[in-house]
């Protein structure tokens, strides 16, 4: 464990942020969206999903990345690539994550 932490590549870059993802439906799409965020190298800090009046769903997630060459714009585009994801965008100001 200590050797892992000493390795620079395992240092978190501290990119954190809040994403708002609009889903056309939740069955399947919610799992796909959350799975994509995790697989692309981010950890969750908070997850919220609510249905809107138009029937779509607003998913708000607070995330922190796991290091490496990642950026939230790319993540948003990777989410928008999913079918039934209507849009994905960063919201609010960028905060620096506390280091573990």
């Amino acid at each position, binding site marked *: 464990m200590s050797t892992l932490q000493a390795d620079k590549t395992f240092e978190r870059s501290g990119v954190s942020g809040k994403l708002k993802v609009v889903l*056309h439906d939740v069955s*399947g799409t919610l*799992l*796909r969206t959350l*799975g*994509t965020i995790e*697989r692309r190298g981010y950890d969750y800090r908070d997850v919220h999903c609510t249905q809107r009046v138009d029937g779509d769903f607003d998913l708000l997630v607070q995330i922190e990345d796991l290091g490496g*060459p990642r*950026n939230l*714009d*790319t993540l948003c*585009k*990777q989410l*928008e*690539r*999913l*079918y*039934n994801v*209507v849009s994905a965008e960063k919201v609010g100001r960028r905060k620096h994550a506390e280091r573990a």
Partner: protein
Amino acid sequence: MSTHPTPTDENKHPALSGAKLLLDSLKVQGVDVIFGYPGGAIMPVYDALVGSGIKHILSRHEQGSAIAAIGYARATGRVGTCLATSGPGATNLVTGIADAYLDSVPLVAITGQVPSDLMGTDAFQEVDIFGITLPIVKHSYIVRDPADIPGLIEEAYYIASEGRPGPVLIDFPKDVANAITTERHRWRPYPKVKPEMGTAKNLAAAEELIRSAKKPLFYIGGGIAQGDGVHELRALVERTQIPVVSTLKGLGALPSDHPNFLGMLGMHGLKAANYAVQEADVLIVAGARFDDRATGKLDTFAPHAKIIHMDIDVAEINKLRKANIGIDGSLKKNLAALNPGKLDIQDWQDLCLGRRDQYEWDYDTPVKNIKSEGVYAPKLLHDLTRHAPENAIITCDVGQHQMWVAQHCYFDDPKDHITSGGLGTMGFGIPAGLGAQLACPDRTVITVTGDGSIMMNIQELATLNRYKIPLKIVLLDNGALGMVRQWQEVFFEENYSEVHLYDNPDFAVLARAFQIDAFTVTKGSEVTAGIEKLLAHKGPILMHVKIDQAENVWPLVPPGRSNADMMER
């Protein structure tokens, strides 16, 4: 790509089972062949298959079905279709689905599933294949109502082939397959088409940047073939005379001997190609994605270059390397539109092309460790494609032989080179060749495989025999998992660990047991006659070639190092 489909009208039809409706819907999509393997949960579909008019190819392992469908798709550009039962049948498809995901291949995989009311109860042969494949599909479905089938299938084939292609999974519970319906549901509207940023403004900026360049270079990838942009790329290279390097999957977009082509870049790239990238001042990336096998250590890749990145998938732009100009949308259209005018790059061209000639492969110099009478695989492969008909298709497996194919075979169309790039799937070669040969019965299809890889889908020799598919197999047998052996030699101080296949079967005898003709070549002097025999043969045939284990793939960029640090033999 395909036009945006309209939702299916709600209407009635004669009473049909879900299974029959599935096959009818596949026919509407133009599906003429399915690669599959039956079992309990998919039996209603196999029942309906009889007399359906759709050809079914029975593989001998579901992985073979999936990869054969990939071979079919990559040779034709059409969507490949594979079919399996639930549980182990479905999990056996997973490697093929992952392969299609990483190489952006249009594939529809249909799996049987236990009846809906048993789903989630750990029923016999139940696995959550929807969940298992979530990270490796472009999209997936569980069919809940037979009346959804026509719309769902239409959408699935649209999604598999639209934009950047990829695999779509359809999980089909047995009760839905058996249910009788007279209805078809109106399918929900298709997702919006995403806006393109390949606007006139970005194209103009790219042209400006190219005009200002002293050392412009194209770095092209598999997207050229998939985006049907070969013709447009060639015309653009003709207009600008800019030199070109290619990824593994971009090979053939320019003919191997094209005057502007410097070869493959990356870990086993040619020196002229890697040096050009290191020196370029503007890199025009078209249908490629900065894969680590191509870039080496990313922050040393093309260190002096401004980047113009053109890709159909906007999520690739800025993913690994920030682009100065990003152009998404149709590569075909954007390559056709890009017109920087006449460039003054003669010195750069001379330098690049001079290097290409300087480092040209010498097939005649005796190679270290090769006994003088032995077979030199690079020369064999060089000769093979030059003897084969011009439109021959080469599929290959994974290992040293795969890199030799990339380095030494001649390609003049990227669809002629079917290789597992992103996933590097050992066992890919024979089923992919089988699928390609079925799709293109009038063409010569050759599979180049290794003694490790061939054993991973050896059972597909039975499929070749069953359908008399005249695939030509060249087995380069070095008695080892050669690529791993090479790494252990070079990076692990010759600490050889589980790489020697001293106990291989007699491959020619094995092939004959499957009723496939076979012969063995052990001497360099026998190679030409062997190639002629292979190419002249009418049915499936295997040429078993013994080669020296000590022969390695060069150049080699050590992992984690810059492409400038190529090691040589």
